[in-house]
C-alpha cells in the first residue's frame, strides 16, 4: 500500500535521507526506530507530502506523492497522522477537533460528523470529554483524541511519529492500548517509536534508520533475534536496557 523507493532528501547541503526504500503492505504494521536525528520524522512526513523530497518515488495506493498533478489534500485525507505533541487545535473543543476535517474535507453533514466523532471518542475511552478543550485533558487523553481525529477520516493507513514520547510514563499504555487494538483490527500502520514492547507485540517488520539510511528492514522476530548491523545492535541494547 505504501511504497518507498530510493528516496533521498536534502535540507540545503545536508542529506537527511539517503536512498531509502521500504514498503508497508495492506494490513501490515511497520515500526521505524533509530537514534535521534536519523531522519525518521522526515521520512514519515514525506509519505503524506508534508515534506518534499528530491529523489526517488513514494506511492500510496498507487498514487505518486511527489508527482506534479497529485491532489495532495485528497491523498492526505486518506492517510491518518498522529504527532509527537498531539497537535490538537487548542481553540476548538474535543468534538470540534474531531469534526473539522469531516465537515470541510469529506463534506459530511454536521449530524453525521458528530455521530462519527461520538462513536470514535467512545472507542478511545473519552466519550464524556467531547465538550472540553484540549488544555483541560491530560497528555494521554489528548493523544487518544488525536487518534480519534485521524480515524474520523476513515483512513486507509495510519502514520504515527513517536506518539508516546511526549507522555508521562503512566500514560503511555493507555495510548499504546488503542494502537494495539487498531493494529489487531487490521489497520495498515507505520509507527516511529522506541516502544519495543509494542513492536514485538504487533509489528510485522522493524525498520532501523541511522544517519538518513535504512540500515535494517527485517521481520520482527528476526530483528529482535539478531539484528545484523553493529549500529542496530548497539541501539537495541541501549533502549532495551532502559
Amino acid at each position, binding site marked *: 500500500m505504501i511504497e518507498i523507493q530510493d528516496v533521498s532528501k536534502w535540507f540545503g547541503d545536508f542529506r537527511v535521507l539517503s536512498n531509502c526504500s521500504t514498503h508497508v503492505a495492506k494490513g501490515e504494521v511497520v515500526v521505524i526506530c533509530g537514534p535521534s536525528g536519523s531522519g525518521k520524522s522526515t521520512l514519515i512526513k514525506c509519505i503524506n507530502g*508534508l515534506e518534499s523530497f528530491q529523489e526517488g518515488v513514494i506511492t500510496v495506493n498507487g498514487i505518486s506523492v511527489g508527482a506534479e498533478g497529485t491532489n495532495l*489534500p485528497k491523498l492526505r485525507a486518506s492517510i491518518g*497522522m498522529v504527532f509527537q505533541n498531539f*497537535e490538537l*487545535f*487548542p481553540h476548538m473543543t474535543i468534538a470540534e477537533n474531531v469534526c473539522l*476535517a469531516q465537515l470541510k474535507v*469529506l463534506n459530511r453533514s454536521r449530524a453525521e460528523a458528530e455521530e462519527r466523532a461520538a462513536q470514535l471518542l467512545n472507542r478511545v475511552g473519552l466519550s464524556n470529554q467531547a465538550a472540553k478543550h484540549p488544555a483541560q485533558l491530560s497528555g494521554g487523553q489528548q493523544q487518544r483524541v488525536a487518534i480519534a481525529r*485521524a480515524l474520523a477520516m476513515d483512513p486507509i493507513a495510519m502514520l504515527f511519529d513517536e506518539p508516546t514520547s511526549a507522555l508521562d510514563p503512566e500514560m503511555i499504555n493507555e495510548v499504546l492500548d488503542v494502537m494495539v487494538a487498531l493494529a489487531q483490527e487490521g489497520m495498515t500502520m507505520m509507527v516511529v517509536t522506541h516502544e519495543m514492547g509494542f513492536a514485538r507485540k504487533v509489528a510485522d517488520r522493524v525498520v532501523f534508520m541511522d544517519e538518513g539510511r535504512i540500515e535494517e528492514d527485517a521481520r520482527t522476530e528476526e530483528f529482535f533475534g539478531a539484528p545484523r548491523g553493529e549500529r542496530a545492535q548497539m541501539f537495541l541494547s541501549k533502549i532495551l536496557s532502559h
Partner: protein
Amino acid sequence: MVGRFDFTVIFSNLDILWNGMLITLLLTVVAIVGGILLGTILALMRLSRFKLPAYAAGRFVDAFRATPLILVIFWFYFAVPIVTGRPIGGLYSVLIAFTLFESAYYCEIIRAGIQSIRLPQVHAGLALGLTRWQATRHVVLPQAFRNMVPLLLTQAIVLFQDTSLVYVVGLKDFLTAADLVATRDNRVVEMYLTAAVVYLVICSLGSLWVRRLQRQYAI
C-alpha cells in the same frame, strides 16, 4: 472668564457634539473593520510563497508606515479627486485614508500573530486533508487573532484618538467640535474636561469589552 464653571454649555451644544461623536465613531469602526480585513489580506500576501504579492504588500506597508497620518489624509483629500475626476468629499476621503493607513499597521500585527503559530499545527491541519487556505482559515487565523487581541486593541485606541486629525480637511469629529464650542462660548475648561472624560469612558469600555471577549474565548 474665570469664576464659576458652567457645564450647561454641554447641553446647549449637544447636537454639534453628538454629530462630532458620530464621525469619530464611524471613522473608528470603519477603519478598524476595514483595516483588519485589509491587514489580514496584506499579511497573508506578505507571508505568501509567491514573490510578487509578498513584494507588493511589503512596499505598500512600508510606504504607509513611513508617512505621517496627517499627510495621508491630505493626500487622499487632494489626490483622489484628481484620479477619479470628481470630488468625493471629505468624509469618504478620510474613510479611505484611515482604512489604508490602519491596514498597514494591522498587517504587521497580524503577520507577527500568524508567525507565532507553530508549523506542526499547520501540518496537523494539512495532514487531515485541509487545503492550505482551509488550514489558514480554521487553524492558524483563529489562534493568531486570539494571541493578537491586546495589540489590536492598543492599535484601535490609538486610532480612536487619531480621528481628531480630520479637522485638517474641515470635518468636525468629537474633539474638533468640543474645541470649537470651547473657544466660541469661552468654556475651555468645561469642554476640555468633558472631552477627556468622554474619551476615557469610551476607551475603558472598549478595553473592558475586549477583555470579556478574551475571557470568553480563552481556554
